[in-house]
């Protein structure tokens, strides 16, 4: 067991995967500087900077994966993946099926996602709902360093496409790079969940199977379902609810796809109330998918969702109000009776 920061844990896991398997390489914008420790360990042949050409270098990742490598292609922020959407929508998700199941695409797409640090509507999206809509695409977003390491190792070892989303608010690398974390005049301490940004990581590093939710808190009255920073916001809300005598479970999905339906059903049956807390758009995404899974299984708990309903505003107080904060979660739970 050792204490690691979130970004450090991801790089440690990627380093471990690169050490175990020569076919693992990584490329993306500025990766040699941002992940300079991986560069120092493995050299520039395996850690490559790209031009600002997302559509080309992500599609190239698909080609390289099918050519025998196990590329970890970094899209700086998931918002920028929209520039390269065809590589997901038409290629990475399709080629296994087009080959009649005979050709795997062992690609990892690594990207920052998420908000709370004041970067506006083009740099703070998560897009995990849309990404998980396509066949053969797995989507994960860890909420702790331990999960981050385990999921990265599993992602690289998987023969399938995995979109590995690292939440920017939890990542010391992204907070330093994007949020001007070094400004002594700004503190993010009240926004960054401490257990998410830094924590124990079990050694030796082991892969954490995709699609297994973690129960972060046990309660009998309601289950709060989320992932990434949302899982921490749920824990904050659960503490507040406990003061009013409402005991909440908190289920951290860790993966948007595969979705741990068994854990969802279990909790929904046990508590009879379920609130999805989703740092993605309310339409066409995870919250609707969860509702559908419950109904398909004949389970109909009281249900609510706290999600992003429009463009994430830039002004910090508007941004905070637009994201699924603890106050919104508490209000939604109380409205369920």
């Amino acid at each position: 067991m050792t204490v690691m920061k979130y970004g450090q844990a991801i790089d440690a896991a990627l380093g471990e995967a690169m050490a175990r398997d020569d076919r693992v390489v990584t490329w993306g914008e500025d990766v040699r500087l941002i992940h300079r420790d991986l560069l120092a360990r493995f050299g520039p042949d395996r850690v490559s900077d790209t031009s600002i050409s997302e559509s080309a270098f992500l599609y190239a990742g698909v080609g390289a994966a099918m050519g025998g490598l196990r590329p970890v292609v970094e899209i700086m922020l998931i918002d920028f993946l929209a520039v390269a959407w065809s590589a997901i929508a038409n290629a990475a998700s399709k080629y296994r099926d087009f080959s009649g199941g005979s050709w795997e695409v062992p690609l990892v797409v690594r990207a920052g996602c998420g908000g709370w640090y004041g970067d506006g509507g083009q740099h703070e999206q998560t897009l995990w709902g849309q990404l998980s809509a396509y066949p053969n695409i797995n989507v994960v977003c860890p909420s702790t360093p331990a999960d981050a390491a385990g999921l990265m190792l599993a992602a690289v070892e998987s023969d399938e496409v995995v979109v590995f989303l690292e939440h920017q608010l939890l990542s010391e690398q992204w907070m330093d790079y994007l949020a001007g974390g070094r400004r002594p005049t700004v503190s993010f301490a009240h926004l960054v969940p401490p257990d998410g940004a830094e924590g124990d990581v079990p050694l030796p590093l082991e892969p954490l199977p995709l699609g297994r939710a973690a129960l972060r808190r046990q309660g009998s009255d309601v289950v709060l379902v989320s992932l990434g920073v949302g899982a921490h916001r749920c824990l904050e809300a659960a503490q507040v609810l406990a003061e009013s005598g409402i005991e909440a479970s908190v289920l951290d999905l860790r993966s948007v796809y595969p979705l741990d339906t068994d854990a969802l059903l279990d909790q929904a049956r046990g508590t009879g109330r379920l609130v999805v807390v989703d740092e993605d758009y309310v339409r066409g995404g995870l919250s609707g998918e969860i509702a559908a899974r419950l109904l398909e299984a004949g389970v109909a708990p009281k249900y609510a969702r706290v999600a992003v309903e429009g463009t994430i505003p830039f002004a910090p107080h508007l941004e905070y109000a637009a994201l699924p904060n603890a106050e919104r979660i508490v209000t939604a739970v109380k409205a369920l009776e």
Partner: protein
Amino acid sequence: MGVPPGFDAASAYRAMVRMRLTEEALVQAWADGLVPGEYHSGIGEEGINAGVLAHLDGRDSMALDHRNTSPLIGRGTDLTSLMLEVMGSEDGLNRGRAGHMHLMDPGIPATADGIVGSSGPLAVGQAIANGRLHPGRIAVAFHGEGAMNQGMLMESYSMAVAWNLPVLFVCKDNKWSITTYSAEVTGGDLVERARSFGLAVEKVGGDRVEDVHRAAGRLIARARRGRGPGFLHAGCHRPGGHFEGDPIVRLLRNPRGQAEEWGPPLIQSARTKSGGNRSDHVAAVTVLTKRGARAARDYAVRARMDPVRHGRRLLEPSAAERIEATERLEVEQAMTEARAAIGPRATFGATGGTR
């Protein structure tokens, strides 16, 4: 070369001073914790902005990138309103919804977008609309050299030529793609690339506003007459780095401090047994030191390319001083007003805003 016909050194200098002072005021506001998120300043691009903007009339369109503050100011966007937006106020230009990367001024009309390369296709669309609705108006796309590796920008060059659109693509070449040296990740020569698309091409030093003015004037006049799109390549310098807090600028400003922070984990990584061989480690060190050396050299050499200082030399000192005094007063007033509206801000989040 001399001064081109129609070039007014005083108004060019006034525009550049206004841009520089506003950028400096916003950089300071960022350092003081009043600007959320990132801030990409346009310091070093004033010669390009002022030289191009001088040819635009009241309703020509602009598609801007992440360094959009200066072109907006040059077209007359209200200073206080812009500052409030960048600081995240609901009283700002875009009601606090945009922030500095996505400023929108329909009155110009001008859009700004943080997705690299998107200004190209947006300007193409603006030109199509102008062609149908406002013949004679042109559209200008501002982008960097890094953006020229983005597919949509190259596609928009081709489209502009094929459709013979009144567009000017302005490439502000500061040699850096975010924090990667552009030449390391770029194939071919950018000016030749633009020419091969069929664009009319001019190449200038962006620190010389009169040269930018001359070259932009030729391309804009051509486009306005319906003779097709142009491409202006202008070299420049970004003394503030990609954005405020840029790690490479940190390295240059405080080499020892940064080395103390980056060094030990780098050495530990290189020594990890399960890793590359010796030549990999040597190559890695070469990559990093080369980048640092390039940055140091660029910053030393290009620091002399200050467009504002050059523009000042085109004027009598007393005339320059008068311009500086009036612009400083206006910018300071706007910033004082904006800071008063924002109030102290030590944090972001629920309590981090105004109204």
